[in-house]
């Protein structure tokens, strides 16, 4: 997933053009990066429409703040760090909404059925893993999504998360440990799949 020198030079040139107000240059950059940004937002939010809004807002905000970006650096980690922050805010807002609903339903005799939601997610190994990862905190989720789902290098993951590569490795180790605990407790089907 490392970019070539040619690709880097092209990206730098497009960034400079976009900075000078060339919206077509920015559109080309959006097209080049929209898929990982959308996918990352989808993994974090679990909703296609929310992910689309977040991705769109990511590119609009990045465009407005392009003057602050160091064009010698790759664009994608910066975009994903913006997307992560927007998704976090959005998820917190959604979280308050769901918490309110949960409080309502918890006091209602007809409590909602958790198993239906989980059952619908058990269509593939990747979806099962995703459902398990979504039980982890945001830092664990991000490092696992970036490394395994989006196949970012350790260095690129570090750039997105704003930490050193060594920190990414230690976070991965801890996230894997916590994921195992979740799998054992809540998703034994995944473990059986692993052991067969």
């Amino acid at each position: 997933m490392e970019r070539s020198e040619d690709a880097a030079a092209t990206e730098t040139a497009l960034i400079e053009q976009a900075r000078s107000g060339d919206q077509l240059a920015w559109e080309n950059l959006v097209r080049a990066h929209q898929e990982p940004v959308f996918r990352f937002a989808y993994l974090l939010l679990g909703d296609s429409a929310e992910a689309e809004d977040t991705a769109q807002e990511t590119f609009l905000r990045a465009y407005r703040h392009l003057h602050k970006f160091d064009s010698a650096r790759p664009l994608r980690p910066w975009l994903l760090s913006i997307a992560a922050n927007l998704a976090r805010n959005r998820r917190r807002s959604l979280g308050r909404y769901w918490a309110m609903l949960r409080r309502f339903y918890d006091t209602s005799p007809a409590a909602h059925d958790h198993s239906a939601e989980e059952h619908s997610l058990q269509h593939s190994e990747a979806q099962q893993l995703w459902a398990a990862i979504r039980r982890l905190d945001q830092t664990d989720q991000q490092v696992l999504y970036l490394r395994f789902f989006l196949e970012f290098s350790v260095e690129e993951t570090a750039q997105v998360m704003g930490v050193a590569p060594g920190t990414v490795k230690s976070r991965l180790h801890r996230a894997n440990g916590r994921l195992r605990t979740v799998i054992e407790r809540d998703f034994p089907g995944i473990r059986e799949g692993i052991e067969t």
Partner: protein
Amino acid sequence: MNSNPLTPGSASENWLELRLQQAAPAFPYPPTPDIAGNVRRQLERLPARPAHRAALRPAWLLALFLLAAAALFAIPGVRAAVLEFIQVGVVRIFLVEPTPTPTASAPTPQPQPTPISSLLNLAGETTLEEAIAQSTLPVRLPSYPPDLGPPDYVFLQDYGGDLLFLVWTDPEDPGQVLMSLQSFGPDATPVNKWYAQQMGEHPLEMTEVNGSPAVWTTGPYLLELKTGDLEMRRILDGHTLIWSEGEITYRLETHLTLEEALQTAHSLEDAR
């Protein structure tokens, strides 16, 4: 129950990582929408947005303030130059007489937004949920601006009484503070010192929030928090809306306009 748990360092740990490597890239994402087209249409509709608001603030405001502050701290007896103060809740705003300021050789620093790193050493960092559970103050969150969301950092401190400090960072630049809201209990004794002479003709504006008197101050200015032996000083670049409701005093630090700050204050809702 399986008798071979997935313990750290075991072969199963590698199996899990291997499974992640094999299965995760095959995750069935929904089709990626035409985000580039949507962004282009949005950009075509929107007017050109100004650069970061802090960059628009005249540099001389902070330069004059720093000079004045240095002179004030250096001159013995300067505290006697206080003309009067206004009190809103537990916050006192001191109006200080101007002092002669040497301006010729002074550097002109640029105003900067508050870096989050300057706040991370504050005591009492907690989560919103913990603050809701532990604070003796009502935890109230603004629903304006509409895209604000919950705070990124929460601090619950004991300054005689509880002090709840909510911080929102800039989504595009998470290292910078976008807005903060402080709530003081009736026993806290913060002091908001503010030097009027350097801030223009109408730096202090009386207004109201939910029928209670409120004060709007435009930065930059010096904030001093004092209670007992504790003391904290910060130079603030933004503006501040100060008001009280019942026994609680609120300080909203922001780069918003007065109208927007009032809208933010009116939008506060109990987070419990």
